[in-house]
């Protein structure tokens, strides 16, 4: 039992808590943000497990780029909806 044992267990519990929170939340934006924080916690765990290579990669890829891609998808979907609405309005105006 090292000195970091307690800290590690707290981090593991936080990981499981984040995973369950993603499962239960209704808002997609919240889900993505919780997933990004999940990746950051994972990054601290890699450092505690003496693998700094993995920590750097996980911080850049998991928390940074994966999260950005998810957010981009959400934004694309919203733009799609907005474009649809504008098109409908234009059609109505054209009919008049």
């Amino acid at each position, binding site marked *: 039992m090292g000195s970091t044992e307690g800290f590690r267990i707290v981090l593991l519990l936080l990981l499981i808590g984040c995973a369950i929170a993603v499962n239960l939340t209704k808002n997609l934006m919240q889900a993505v943000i919780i997933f990004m924080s999940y990746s950051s916690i994972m990054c601290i765990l890699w450092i505690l497990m003496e693998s700094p*290579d993995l920590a*750097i990669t996980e911080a*850049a*890829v998991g928390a940074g*780029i994966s999260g950005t*891609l998810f957010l981009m998808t959400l*934004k694309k979907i919203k733009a799609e909806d*907005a*474009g649809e609405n504008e098109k409908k309005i234009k059609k109505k105006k054209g009919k008049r």
Partner: protein
Amino acid sequence: MKKVFDRFYNLIAVICCLLLIGVLLYAVSLLPSYGEENPRSVEVVERYVEHGLEETGATNIVAGMILDYRAFDTLGESHVLFTALICVIILLGKDKKNMRREYDSYYTVEAESYHLLQTDTIVRLVGYVLLPGLFLFGIYILLNGQLSPGGGFSGGAIMGAALIIFAVAFGFETVDRVFTEKLLKTVTFVALSFYSFAKGYVFFTGANGIDNHIPKGVPGAILSGGLILPLDIAVGFVVACTMFGFYSLFRRGSIGHDITFMDQQ
């Protein structure tokens, strides 16, 4: 009918999940304890740790492992990234074949206005402060892969993230002046083919027992580790290009400034 099916599906799914977790937990309870050395895995590790420095010249044993002993693994992986980029180009790229009637609404001008980057003053100022450090950090990690934690994947991912922040802060027009689609394709192609040929040469000479004349250098110096540094740079460029390509394709449907599309408008 649907309700019955749903209930049945849920029941089966719950049983499957519980069974899976139970079986896996039982397997974990039979594993050796956490934090102790598994005596069955010693042989390979011994080779990597005790002969790694003299055979590869890299101080970082993980880098020496993934770019020298297991270089084919990494080659396949960079090709996985390249293939993923091609798939995303096929799925999200803007071109004539992609703009059939049912998808037409997506690329109309109205929807396009939501894709324009609003260059915010705060974001731009943060970009001025942050970007030089980010690029420098990425290049530092890329070049020191054989000495310290890091290497191609992490350095490339940081450089890709820096390019993404550049695009967010200063708009795609600024990035397009330097980083065109042609440059991205050229860099990826040159890096991948360099990796293939360099490693193919080393494997060929190694298999036939010929000396490959690649200097190992002094362990601890920046120019050490034989082929590890150039291969790291190649992998890093591929990763950076792929990450920026993903972002750009998700954001606007093309990598560089797309002239043909603008003419159609």
